[in-house]
């Protein structure tokens, strides 16, 4: 499903959570939606899922507005970091309820995940720990098999082995059946290998949208003597420059081979670092 975001703006009183946000997600991929707290990621996801309305602009899915459109809304499953389920319900009720709302619901997968995470089907939501509630959210999101599945910080409180299991199942499911997965997280290093395309939002605006592979190739970290680095980065777009004791380190849009010719040390830039620098750079600009 093609998602078009056109000049999307959302205001809460005086505060602008989204500001003329525009981009297109063309094909089923795992997208990383990154940004600092308050960047507008959750607001965008809630608009996409038809839970709230935009102040201006629009979101189109295959050319149609999803707001209150049953055919499209049941193709979108949004799992947030908490408060996804009503507290008095039992896990078995939650699974049954979701099965009514998603025509693509996979009960077998839901059962497998519930067993995998050791959840008691008769337990009430209010008795679950944060990690267990996150495990239920993840299970529901994956089992919904919704063509557009959105995870917004879905694993608060979940331990490392459970998160690893989630990544494995997510990839397995994605390989079995391609779907658009939009993933927002602050544990970027942990999941960056999953992302096929990355979108970085800062203060409600898109600052970067690029395929992860090309991003890794086009932005490099170079270090070496100050003069050599300065010569290399001349006329190139740099994200960050650090200088210490006659040595310089720069994050720069450039090619590895060319940098090596200048006698510089070259490394890749982790996506988490990139996100930090991209959002910081603009903040200071």
């Amino acid at each position: 499903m093609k998602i078009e975001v056109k000049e999307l703006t959302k205001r809460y009183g005086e505060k602008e959570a989204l500001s003329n946000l525009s981009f297109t997600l063309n094909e089923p991929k795992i997208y990383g939606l990154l940004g600092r707290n308050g960047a507008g990621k959750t607001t965008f996801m809630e608009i996409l899922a038809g839970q709230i309305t935009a102040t201006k602009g629009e979101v189109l899915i295959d050319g149609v507005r999803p707001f209150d459109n049953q055919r499209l809304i049941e193709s979108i499953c949004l799992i947030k970091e908490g408060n996804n389920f009503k507290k008095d319900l039992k896990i078995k009720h939650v699974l049954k309820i979701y099965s009514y709302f998603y025509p693509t619901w996979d009960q077998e997968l839901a059962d497998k995940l519930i067993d995998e995470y050791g959840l008691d089907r008769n337990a009430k939501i209010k008795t679950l720990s944060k990690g267990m509630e996150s495990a239920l959210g993840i299970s529901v999101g994956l089992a919904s098999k919704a063509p557009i599945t959105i995870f917004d910080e879905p694993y608060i409180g979940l331990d490392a082995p459970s998160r690893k299991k989630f990544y494995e199942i997510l990839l397995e499911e994605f390989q079995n059946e391609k779907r658009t997965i939009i993933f927002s997280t602050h544990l970027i290093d942990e999941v960056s290998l999953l992302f096929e395309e990355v979108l970085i939002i800062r203060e409600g605006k898109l600052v970067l949208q690029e395929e992860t592979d090309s991003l890794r190739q086009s932005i490099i970290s170079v270090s070496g003597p100050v003069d050599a680095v300065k010569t290399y980065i001349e006329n190139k777009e740099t994200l960050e420059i650090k200088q210490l004791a006659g040595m310089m380190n720069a994050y720069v849009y450039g090619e590895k081979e060319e940098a090596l010719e200048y006698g510089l040390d070259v490394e890749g830039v982790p996506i988490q670092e990139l996100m930090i620098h991209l959002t910081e750079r603009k903040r200071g600009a």
Partner: protein
Amino acid sequence: MTRQVKGLLFFFLSDLRHSFTIFWSILLIALALSLGIAYLLLDVQDGVFFFGFPFATYINVGIVGFLIVKDYIPFSLKLGAVRKNIFAAAGVLFVLYGFIMAMISSTLHFIINLIIEAVGLHSFMFLHPAQLIGSDTWLTRIAVDTVMMFGVFALFFLLALLFYRGGLIIGGSVVGLIGVTLLFGIAQGWLFEFFLNLYHTIDYVFFAQVFGISILIYGLTYFLVRGITTVKA
């Protein structure tokens, strides 16, 4: 019934079951205590204890009508429900929940009446709006209660929506306006006259009118449900 409406009803009923059980447990304890008090009044001259299920059940449905908006609508939207289905499911719930409440209370009313007749506990009496139309049977009590509870549901659903969509300013203004109108009615006497007149003339037509007005109120709520989001005003 569409899959989503079924899902919403399953959601509402699964979640309401707990509070429904608590409500009836408390009401049954209150009924048992009332029967005990009535027994003590047997030796008291003209001592009678009145008990009315509707006082409790109508308040309960009012609270549920309010909660549907405050708690259930945001979660329904998170589940992926569309507004027209939320509106439809709420309507079905109002009728269904009201009917179940009416059936339980009327059946209990019937059974307790049989018992007090058998044991001669004449100091205990039930109160019910159906007595006003002179037809206090199991069936009329169910019909009257279902209609009245649908009305209470619809009214509180509307008020809750006004608070949810319009915030304290609009919701509070409407409630304030109703309060001031009632105070005027009391001060000028027409409210008292209305109820006195109603008491003398009440018949089936009145409950039919209540049902008609309730449907109208419920219909009006569609315009407030139509654009509702997970964010309160």
